[in-house]
């Protein structure tokens, strides 16, 4: 069995294992962690197949998306519903360590594979990233611009549909707050001092209260 075949089967096994654990573990944090591992392993398989740009894009986009997923889990799932763990160490640290070690092992194998196993790193001009960029910004530049307008239109549409101005909303206008002067709020009135004769009684009443 060649090294690349070994890598493929190892990564596939990890991928299948982590994918199963995404849907089978009880704890949402564990599933999210497994998902990270699954994406990372997929990326690793792609890199061994020579699609390094796709692999990196997967890591950047999907693993980033999983971070958002984490936030959702923390915010939306009522974690107290789960059984109180005996120790945080076993629930959080061991899975984290496991995922971390596996990822590190995959990375190490990839490095060995790309430097030792396969020989020299390909020239920049023949790499996927270079070719993809050349195709996108040269041949498909019009399509790329259309995609840009498409995304813009999606944004405008989302804002146009969800932005409602209600008359009952209270809000601050900082510029007006800053521009305010004392004279707008406080009016000083000159008055003569008036002394009622029963003033001391009033004072007494207030003191009683």
């Amino acid at each position: 069995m060649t090294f690349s075949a070994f890598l493929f089967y190892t990564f596939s096994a990890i991928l299948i294992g982590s994918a199963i654990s995404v849907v089978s573990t009880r704890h949402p944090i564990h599933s999210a962690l497994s998902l990270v591992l699954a994406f990372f392993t997929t990326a690793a398989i792609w890199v061994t197949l020579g699609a390094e740009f796709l692999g990196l894009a997967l890591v950047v986009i999907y693993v980033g998306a999983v971070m958002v997923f984490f936030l959702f889990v923390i915010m939306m799932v009522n974690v107290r519903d789960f059984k109180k763990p005996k120790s945080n160490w076993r629930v959080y640290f061991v899975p984290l360590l496991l995922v971390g070690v596996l990822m590190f092992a995959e990375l190490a194998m990839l490095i060995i594979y790309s430097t030792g196993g396969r020989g020299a790193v390909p020239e920049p001009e023949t790499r996927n990233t270079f070719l993809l960029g050349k195709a996108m910004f040269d041949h498909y530049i019009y399509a790329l611009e259309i995609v840009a307008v498409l995304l813009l239109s999606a944004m405008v549409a989302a804002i146009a549909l969800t932005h409602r101005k209600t008359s009952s909303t209270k809000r601050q206008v900082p510029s007006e707050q800053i521009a305010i002067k004392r004279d707008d709020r406080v009016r000083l009135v000159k008055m003569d001092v008036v002394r009622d004769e029963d003033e001391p009684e009033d004072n007494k009443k207030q003191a009683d209260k």
Partner: protein
Amino acid sequence: MSFPFFSLLPELTLLTGLLLLLLIPFFIPRSIEGVQEDQTCGGKIAYIITQVSLWLAILFLCLQDVESTRLAMQTLLLRSMLTQMLQVVALAATSVALFYAYGYLIHERLLKTETFILLFCTLLGVMTVIGATHFIPVYLGIELMSLPLYAMVALRKEHLTSAEASLKYFFLGALASSFLLYGFSLIYGATGSLSMLEIGRQAISGNATLLKIGLLFVVAGLAFKLSIVPFHMWAPDVYRGAPTFVTAFISTVSKLAIVILLLRLMSGPLVSLMTYWQSILVVLACLSMILGATVAILQTNIKRMLAYSTIGHMGYLLLGAMTGDLAGYSASLFYVFVYAITNLVAFGVLLSMHVDEKENDNLDDFRGLYYRSPLRALLMGMAMFSLAGIPPFIGFFGKFAVIEIAFNNGFFWTSIIAILTSVIAAFYYLRIVLLMFFTESAMSATRYFTRAPWSMSLLTINGLTLIVLGLFPSLILSRLVYAIARVIVI
């Protein structure tokens, strides 16, 4: 690589207009105290910018040299006399519809910057679809055309019917897009190319089964966009729920773009599957014509009725397309031009019927229209006669051209069905004429209508073109035949 600045000038003009519109809200506040919300000068400035950039883009399009067919942007786009004509018609129709819609937009509180930004995005998509010769820009163009339309349908946020229509349109549209994309990917699998020119060369040697399945998916996707039976379910609800201006846009400009795409696919890359195409299109055309003619009779809302009328007209349009020769394609394109011009008049009248915050789009609102507003009644009558296909009007020649072509190419029974359904359809068009001229009005005559500067005179001119072109149909038809005959790829 030098950037083909001049050949892209129309698109760039639209894009510049779009970016200018995006800047408006920064400089002009959305609402000023005491002024009705969203009725500020921002919307009016956006309207003016929109019209100016539309006409600038038309000017640049007309200045282009189209004597010879060229490929632009690394063969992704096509520039020919035909694409130029279609793009000019699409932009001009949008501009004219905007003139009609000015009063309507104010009344419905749609004279906002967003409306025009979304409109520009859609138009860029339309321009792309009309010119594209590669599946990637085709798909992106269709998406760019549809996505803002979904939002524009729902722009009247307080209307529940609008929201419902938009949601239906969005889900079914997403399904249609996925069909289209799946079809493209199968064709790519069979031929190994995404460029239409290349596919045409590879299609003969490619895997025929894959190609046929791909073709089926592509037809389904495009038929959805054209609202052809059995992919028409969305049309009545969307036509009814959308603001009338958006309905007018969907039923004219977006149809124009999809029709040319359909013809280009049929005549270029997939021409080797012609017999297969024909058998699908015959069935679709017959179903559309029959359903469009019969179900429309039951409608009490004129926008729903026009939706079924569109379904029927798309059926007639397929009659010309399915013959598979250049004369048939030019008849189809002529038909879609005729349909667009006529529908613009109908929707123009409908847009000007807006009274007291009410749309007045029920058939009963047309009772005795002649005694309240003779001009509107006359124009609507002309539009209805033209849609029904009655001789002095242009609609007759559109129908005549496609049915003649289909008949000459041996589609005997399909032509018979077309003639019968057009007789049935004449009933509901003429019913509106009857209502307008020969019944008493429930409304008092003193009600005034929405007025917009120039809109009525422009509408009158547009109505008169129905007669003028009806008397001299060769004005368009000969140009179309000439343009089609000159191009290698439609």
